[in-house]
């Protein structure tokens, strides 16, 4: 089955699962980015990647070209992804503001230094 899929990869239209796999790659990259970067801005970028992966999934689920139209989310998927984009922008703004504040206070943006609330 898998070999068949690989064989017909270039000759057949792609489906939802292809998009999901790409979204998963982006998502995992984002997560790993968040988990490994000590720079606050790096973590922010990881978040952007994660959100983007999720967005890709929404688009895939809403697209009429990837599976039968009756099963798709229709415009809901695109609307959701729009909201996600907007929220991501907002989040980026706030997070950047926090990062700037943090930087002003500690003269660094190393998140490992931000442990004053530690129990």
């Amino acid at each position: 089955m898998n070999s068949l899929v690989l064989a017909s990869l270039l000759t057949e239209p792609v489906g939802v699962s292809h998009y999901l796999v790409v979204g998963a790659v982006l998502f995992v990259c984002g997560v790993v980015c968040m988990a490994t970067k000590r720079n606050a801005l790096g973590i922010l970028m990881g978040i952007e990647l994660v959100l983007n992966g999720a967005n890709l999934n929404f688009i895939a689920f809403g697209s009429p070209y990837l599976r039968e139209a009756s099963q798709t989310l229709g415009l809901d998927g695109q609307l959701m992804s729009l909201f996600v984009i907007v929220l991501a922008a907002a989040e980026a703004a706030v997070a950047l503001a926090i990062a700037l504040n943090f930087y002003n206070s500690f003269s660094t943006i190393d998140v490992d230094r931000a442990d004053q609330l530690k129990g």
Partner: protein
Amino acid sequence: MEAPIYWPTFFFLLFSAIACAFAVAVVVTPNIVRMAFYLVLSLAATAGLFFLAGADFVGAMQLMIYVGGTLVLLVFGVMLTSQDRFISMKTSGFELGVAVTLGVCLFVVLAYCARSIPEWHGMKAKQVSAVPLEPTAAPLGMGLLGARVDGPDRSGYLLVFEIISVHLLVVLVGAAYLARARGKKNLLVE
């Protein structure tokens, strides 16, 4: 048996490869400025994937907001906060290893889930070509104003739209408040 190349799939593979490759590059590179640059490329490629899936308006938004707005913001942040040029903060190898291992595990799980449903494997080319090509900007606008054109029983998003608008305003004001310089007050006092 040799079937002709189905070009949309080709472009899908191309864009996804770019997106995935630069996403991985974002993870791998230690330099924050490069990270930002790779991220731009990755997100732009994702916008291409959106176009391929028929979401022209969302793709355009992706390019404008993310690539044009958010990343400019990020670059500003990078420039404002870096004392030394191209500063980098190393993570320990152990941590990196653990993170990558876990990431691979997560990817396996996700990919398995994505592949495990047969209906998601895609349609035949004939079925795809039967789907009419329609611009989505107008239906999306109507949906945000509360009127759905793609299905009578689906609900509109006027309230959410309003809330999002106000939320955005509040967030921007709050961000401006948070980000203003600390020392100004002291300067005023002196």
